[in-house]
């Protein structure tokens, strides 16, 4: 009885620490975004005067709404392309026997460890020559590339677990090959694909290195790059409220994804790590 009570209180305190440490920086940026400009610099954690004006300000700011549009579009397209290419590759890795399987895994590992900043110079140079600088494709191409290794690792570990014999069993039971694929294989593969999509979307949504180097205007600038160049009222004032409000807006989608899909994120990354 007392042992049980002690265990529960031990767990409660461990959980309390994890929750507080994980949430305090998030809460802080939310609180800062709700402070009025006059109280933004008072240093108190909880605002003394509350306001939503920072949010209405940034949505009036063309830079921010454009950046939000760019972020959503670029991240979604990059993710879709990466997952599509990775599905094909992962299917081959999981199901087919071919020479060069180790090679493709080695290339993926190499790309995963690649220092991305090393590509910034040559890409900056090349993109300006061929007109991709400050465009959506100019960011989609590197995002898709750096999302591929993780997509391939996670998807191939998922695909290895699928009981592919079911496809033949369905065909023996009279299903056409297409029916067997659509009714049996697609539902089995879907959880892996959704997991990969979420993990890759987070990577693309979060990027800063390429966003700050390969864009310059609202044409393609994503939110992380836009926040870092928010204009203050004068050169010497930091627009605390605007930065905080914009930070909250880009954080919300990711937080929802993480909280809703934590089981998939955990299983996806742990499976990828063990098998990769």
């Amino acid at each position, binding site marked *: 009885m007392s042992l049980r009570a002690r265990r529960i209180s031990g767990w409660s305190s461990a959980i309390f620490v994890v929750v507080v440490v994980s949430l305090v920086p998030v809460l802080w940026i939310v609180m800062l975004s709700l402070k009025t400009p006059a109280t933004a610099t008072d240093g108190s954690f909880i605002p003394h005067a509350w306001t939503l004006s920072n949010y209405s300000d940034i949505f009036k700011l063309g830079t921010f709404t454009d950046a939000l549009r760019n972020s959503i579009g670029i991240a979604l397209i990059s993710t879709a392309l990466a997952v599509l290419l990775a599905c094909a590759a992962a299917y081959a890795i999981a199901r087919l026997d071919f020479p060069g399987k180790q090679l493709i895994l080695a290339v993926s590992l190499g790309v995963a460890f690649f220092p991305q900043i090393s590509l910034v110079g040559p890409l900056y140079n090349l993109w300006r020559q061929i007109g991709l600088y400050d465009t959506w494709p100019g960011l989609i191409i590197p995002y898709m590339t750096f999302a591929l290794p993780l997509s391939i690792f996670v998807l191939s570990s998922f695909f290895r677990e699928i009981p592919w014999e079911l496809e033949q069993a369905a065909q023996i039971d009279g299903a056409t090959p297409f029916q067997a694929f659509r009714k049996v294989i697609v539902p089995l593969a879907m959880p892996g694909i959704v997991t990969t999509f979420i993990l890759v979307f987070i990577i693309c949504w979060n990027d800063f290195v390429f966003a700050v180097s390969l864009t310059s205007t609202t044409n393609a600038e994503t939110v*992380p790059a836009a926040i870092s160049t928010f204009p203050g009222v004068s050169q010497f004032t930091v627009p605390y409220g605007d930065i905080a409000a914009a930070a909250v807006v880009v954080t919300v989608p990711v937080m929802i994804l993480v909280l809703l899909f934590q089981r998939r994120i955990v299983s996806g990354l742990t499976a990828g790590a063990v098998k990769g």
Partner: protein
Amino acid sequence: MSTGAVAAPGTAAPPRRRGHLSDRTRSERRLAAMLVGPAAIVMIAVTAYPIIDAVILSLQRADLRFPAQNKFIGLSNYGHVLSAPVWWQDVFHTAIITVITVSFQFVLGMLLALVMHRVIFARGLVRGIALIPYGIVAVVSAYSWQLAFSLNSGWIPKLLGLTSDPLSHTFGLYVAIIIAEIWKNTPFMALLLLAGLALVPDELHEAARIDGATTWQRFTKITLPLMKPAIFVALLFRALDAFRIFDTIYIFGQGAQNTESISMLNYSTLLDRLNLGLGSAVSVLLFVLVGLIALALFLSFGRAATPGGANT
């Protein structure tokens, strides 16, 4: 290509070797090439081509402000970088940040992984909340900590009763940057370690407990050795990622107060000073350094990890 080889029966050896391959094997290989090809081509084209381009640029005088003066100058950019104190200082800054953050992330990540693995109630919610720092945009995390530490706006100086800005001197800035990095990346370390924890069979712990082993003994004698492959993967990923640190440094003053990292130096040489030649030399050197670190970790840890490892 393969059909071409089969249609040429003149040479003796290749057809005989091909003869071992059934039609099925051959069509399987063709399908595999078609499926793997696009992903492989994208990865190689978008990384290999620019890095070769970087090598070529690094051998030239290529300053975007003076395009007329472009010319091949051999290794002199490398000489320039390697003889500049700023390069060695930045290597040192980057190494310090990497070693400190990864050590803390390993210890805290292991604790977090144990909590996530063993938590008995509210498991989903606890795991979800613990993963928030992993999902959060790196720039947002950096801003949150920067605005928290800054004397102008933050709650931390107020809480600690500081009167001078912690971000105005090197030590305070390093503390803030390192805390921001540890907070952001510990959950990912924990996830990679969790993968290893899940492979440790409960029966072993049961047996050891019956034999009278303490919790600490069971952790060091059973859990840690069985987790070696996962620990290797986690340290490799985190160390190489930490060594490329850029976002946090950029937000915390773009390398002010001697906090410039190699990636930050690379960025400023390329995009502020527009010196493609010199910047590319830094890029190539960083690329080589990352490769060497990966190799060193593979050699030291990989050999120890593989014999008992479940890695395929």
